[in-house]
């Protein structure tokens, strides 16, 4: 259940009527609201590729499709046995992930900052994901040639990050205002944990950076403790942190960041650099 019937009906009406509206009109958030928490442990009827090689990105980044005539590219690592499906290749891989992107403020704000880099927002809530997708569609229509490098898809990143990204594919990962899950019993649901950090280390290349921001001091401490405890990461110094343009953007462009701003609250920022893997012991 997504909401009371009349609410759902209004939403459906809105979405059905969308076709009549100009493509440049930004979506209305109120029709895409959804219960705050989705359980990261349940199955959700998610769709996700069996492996990164199975992922067809062409509909997400149509302007970056390698060559529309070469449709039948079978992923090399599965060529021997065949995958049953061909995917269109992109000119380049996604390199920036906004994990739990919510309504996508940061995802779209980063797009013009790094126009040659593919940015992906990942969000577990269906309605919210749809909103971001509509938002990007409208922005692309409003600003031809821009926002082609931003996209959003629905995913449970706590389970399926390696299905989307190859080893060391990403250079930046953003974890902005993650759900706090205050209760100790719920800590396993936090998007940062020592064991999950191994997966972030897997998808982020050495030299890459994990960006975190939160208004909850305990969550900040939690993230710092857990990234510090992980041998693959090292906290980035304050100077370097404040010089990073993404930090500024993350502070002001995320929806949560704006809310905190309005309430004159604190924002805790921490960045972690991905270290080289040590030699085998």
């Amino acid at each position: 259940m997504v909401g009371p019937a009349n609410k759902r009906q209004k939403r459906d009406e809105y979405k059905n009527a969308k076709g009549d509206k100009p493509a440049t009109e930004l979506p209305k958030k109120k029709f895409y609201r959804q219960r705050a928490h989705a359980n990261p442990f349940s199955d959700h009827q998610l769709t996700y590729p069996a492996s990164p090689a199975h992922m067809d990105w062409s509909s997400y980044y149509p302007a970056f499709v390698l060559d529309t005539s070469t449709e039948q590219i079978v992923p090399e690592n599965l060529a021997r046995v065949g995958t049953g499906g061909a995917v269109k290749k992109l000119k380049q891989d996604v390199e920036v992930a906004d994990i739990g992107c919510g309504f996508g403020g940061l995802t779209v704000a980063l797009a013009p900052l790094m126009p040659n880099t593919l940015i992906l927002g990942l969000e577990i809530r269906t309605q919210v994901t749809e909103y971001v997708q509509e938002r990007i569609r409208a922005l692309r229509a409003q600003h031809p040639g821009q926002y082609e490098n931003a996209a959003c898809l629905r995913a449970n990143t706590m389970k399926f990050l390696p299905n989307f990204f190859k080893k060391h594919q990403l250079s930046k990962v953003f974890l902005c205002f993650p759900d706090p899950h205050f209760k100790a019993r719920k800590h396993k649901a936090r998007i940062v944990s020592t064991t999950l950090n191994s997966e972030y280390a897997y998808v982020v290349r050495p030299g890459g950076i994990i960006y975190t921001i939160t208004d909850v001091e305990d969550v900040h401490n939690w993230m710092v403790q857990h990234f510090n405890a992980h041998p693959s990461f090292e906290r980035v110094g304050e100077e370097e942190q404040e010089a990073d343009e993404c930090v500024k953007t993350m502070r002001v462009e995320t929806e949560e960041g704006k809310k905190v701003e309005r309430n004159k609250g604190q924002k805790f920022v921490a960045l972690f650099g991905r270290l080289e893997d040590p030699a085998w012991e």
Partner: protein
Amino acid sequence: MRMPYQCMTRCGDILVAARGSSIDSFRFQDGSLLSTWKPPSSQDGQGSKAPETVAEITTKLDSRNSESSVEIALDAASPPAKKRKLSKSEESPGHPERKNGKKKQNNRASALSSGLETLAVIILASTTDGRHVIAVTGEDKSIRVFENVVKDGTQELKQLSQRAMPKRPCALVISSDNSTIISADKFGDVYALPLFPSANYIKSQGQTLEPAKPFVPAANELTIHSQRNRKALENQKKHTNKVSEKTELSFEHRLLLGHVSLLTHLILVTSAKKDYIITADRDEHIRISRGIPQTHIIEGFCLGHTEFVSRLCIPRNRPDILISAGGDDEIFVWDWKSGELISRTNLTKHVEALKKKLGGAEIVDESIELVKVAVSGLYHTRAHVDDHLLDFIIVTCEGIPALFSFHLHLDGDLLQDPQIVELPGNPLAVLTDIPLLSEGSTGDIVVSIDTVHLPGSTTVLRSEPSGTEKCLMIFHHWDVGLVPSDAAYTEPVEDDDSVLRSGEGIGWLSNLLYNLENLRKRDGDGQDA
């Protein structure tokens, strides 16, 4: 009725097999029953009779490499698996039962309320030196370490320690130096514990990966800005936050790695002098991590399964090849270091053909439905065929009364057509690499047979059992393939089969023996809220 054996391991010269909560030990050589261990009963408060003297361990024990074999069973009575529908007790045995009956019942709860002793052994493993056996009892989530005490021709398992894990273990292995137990649980975490708990363990030294986390109030009104967070904080205040203390384990353990999923299997492998841990989960993943002490580094994944992965197997003489299977129609063979798929072999078509052949009389449920296969065992064995030493992969599927023995080619392809060995009941566990039983025999294996359910069914009971069926069968591997042997084990006469006399007991047993199909994701599961 006889309680079948749900898991087995080889401990030196001894076959160790668990039925329900008891563990029987047999001598491989002559099949004689050596001892039976039972957990301390809650009623009389005393354990299996303690040995009067601590017997010294004979060094006569065969110390040939006995690979610790691991059988797993998952907690079928807990999420994410839906509760298994069990046949109503009044349903007369032998009658077809609709597979998706609407009855819902928590077997464990009802079994407990009926006073059933439900402490089932769900995993057995042993050290390669044959000196210790490790058992996991499911209901109390405990890892129990036993000494295999052999003296003057008698043998006994003596429990040395019992450690309750935070979550139910689903798979367990012993490090190659026999010093460390590595246990994977149904919440996705993998822990390392020393084989022998150290006496002077100080709590806070516990986990390496986990930072110390003193409890501090998580937030106050000043740090909360959104409605949702404020609500969460209110919630937190209502609950006293004692959990972190409760989950603190009182014995030495290290968190090695974790998936956000249910782990189904884990294996250790050494290749080019490097140690690896390979873990499989319900969400189709096979993860390759470095071995201890660098288990936080993920080297890669083998991705391509589209259903749960339940079993992994690396032939000991070919450590670069990984075989995996689960809820998919196919068995996958990987070059696991590169993550490259080498081959896929269809299994479902063989299962389908077998079901057709066995026909309606024996295969009572599912026969018309689309055949779904849940692989319950993948075992490597080597045998001489026409004077060549060949590799075979023996596959078992939940509720399918047969062994599928595939020849593994040198290039990593599985031969498409397996030898299909029909069995008098569903196979529950297989033990390969057992000491050869007779001159000239090769590749001997032991198969545990379900003598309670009808062959081909995971729910329907046999009609009045004769009581003479053997639970353990031995096979030799001759040139023609696997052939049943005349050799047998002196299986104990069931002393207490009360478990099998009640509907609850039967449901409990069925959950214990058959829980893999529950791992399959269903349409409509976990609806987006």
